[in-house]
C-alpha cells in the first residue's frame, strides 16, 4: 500500500468519525418513536433533558399518545405526528387512550 493510499484511508476514517459524532449530536435533539401494528417502537427510550421526541402513526387506525398529567397528543390519523420536548428528568409512562394495551416509556436523564 502506498503512503498516498494510506493517507486517503485516514482521511475517510476521520470524515466518517466527524459525521458519526455530528449524527449522534443531531439525534440528541430529535428522536422518533414509530407506531406500527398497535405498538410503540421502541417501547422504551432513554434520552437527555432537552430532547424532543416525535411519535409517528404508521397504522391504518388512529392512535393517541398520552402521559397522564404530562402530555397528550390530539388523535393521530395515519402518518400524523406529535412532538414533545422533555425539559425535566424522570420516567414518563405513556399509552394510547384509544387502545390502552399500547404502552411505552421515555426515561429522561
Amino acid at each position, binding site marked *: 500500500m502506498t503512503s498516498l493510499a494510506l493517507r486517503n484511508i485516514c482521511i475517510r476514517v476521520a470524515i466518517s468519525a466527524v459525521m458519526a459524532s455530528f449524527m449522534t449530536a443531531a439525534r440528541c435533539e430529535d428522536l422518533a418513536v414509530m407506531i406500527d*401494528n*398497535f*405498538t410503540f417502537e421502541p417501547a422504551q427510550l432513554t434520552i437527555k433533558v432537552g430532547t424532543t421526541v416525535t411519535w409517528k402513526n404508521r*397504522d*391504518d*387506525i*388512529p392512535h*393517541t399518545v*398520552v402521559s*397522564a398529567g404530562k402530555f397528550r397528543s*390530539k*388523535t393521530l*390519523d*395515519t402518518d400524523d405526528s406529535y412532538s414533545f420536548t422533555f425539559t425535566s428528568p424522570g420516567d414518563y*409512562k*405513556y*399509552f394510547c*387512550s*384509544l*387502545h*390502552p*394495551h399500547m*404502552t411505552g416509556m421515555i426515561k429522561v436523564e
Partner: protein
Amino acid sequence: MSAFDHDHSQDDPRLSRRKVLECMTWAGTGVLWSISGGVPHALGLIDSAQAAEPAGLTFLQISDSHVGFDKPANPNAIGTLEEAIGRIKAMPVKPSFMIHTGDISHLSKASEFDDADRIISQARLDVHYVPGEHDFIDEEVKLYRERYGRGTKGSGWYSFDASGVHFIGLVNVVDLKAGGLGNLGAEQLAWLEDDLRGRSKSTPIVVFAHIPLWTVYPTWGWGTEDGARALDYLKGFGSVTVLNGHIHQVMQKVEGNVTFHTARSTAFPQPAPGTAPSPGPMKVADDKLRGLLGIASIIFKPGDERLAIIDTPLQG
C-alpha cells in the same frame, strides 16, 4: 313478557316437534362457541322462523360503520354501509328497530356523522346507539353526545323497554386506563345496579356496548376491565343477551343464562385473535370482502329463554 307468561311456559314444556327443530336451527347459528365460521345464509332462516310462529320481537344490530375510513382494507366504507342498509330495507318483514354498537364514524368528524345519519336513516327504523372509541375523538369530545346523547346518562348510557324485553346500552370506551381494557367505571356500574333493582328476574335482558363485555383477547385489548361486575348484577335473570362490536367479526359463547355475541363490521374485517401481528384492518381479496362484512338480526319470542341471533354477510 310478564311473570305470568314465564310461569306458564315452565308448567307447560310444549316440546313440540316444531320447537325442537327450531332449537336445532338456532343451535346451528349460535349456541356453540364459534369463531366467525359456519354462518348460515340468513334470510331463508328468518323467513322460515317467521312463518313457523307469530313473531315476538325482531330487531337488527349493525356495528362499526367507520364512516370516513378509506384505507386499503376497504377504500369505500360508505358504499358497504349503503349496501348493508339496502339489505335491511329489502327484508320481507320490517324489524322493530335497530341498535348500532359503535364506531359510527372513523375520526368523529361532523361530516362523517352526517354521512352516517344520511345513510342509516334510509332504513326508516328507530336506531339506538352506543359509542365506540372512534366516536369520541373530536377535539372537544362533544359531537357524539350532541347528536346521540339525548336522554342518556353520563357519557351516553341508558335503558329502554320493548315488547317486554329490557334493553341496556352501556359505554365502555371512556376513561380507559394505561395497560387496561374497556372500562365502564363506578358511576355507570352504580346506575346499572339501580336500573336492574326490583326488576322481575323473568324479564329478558339485552345489554349492548361497543367493546366486548367478556374477555375475548386481552393481548389486543378485546375485553372490558370491569365487565364481570356488570355481569354480576345480571345473575339470576333467566335470559341475558350481550351484544357487542369492536372486533369486526362474529364470535359467540354461552355461559349459563348469558349469551355473548359480537357482530361484523359494515366497514372492514379484523383478524381472528392472535392470527396477525395486530388487530388492525385486515386486507382481503376484493371478492372476499363482502363475505366478512354484515349485519345481525335478533329474534325474541315470548317463552324462549334464548334469543335467536342470525348473522348475515353482505355477500356469500
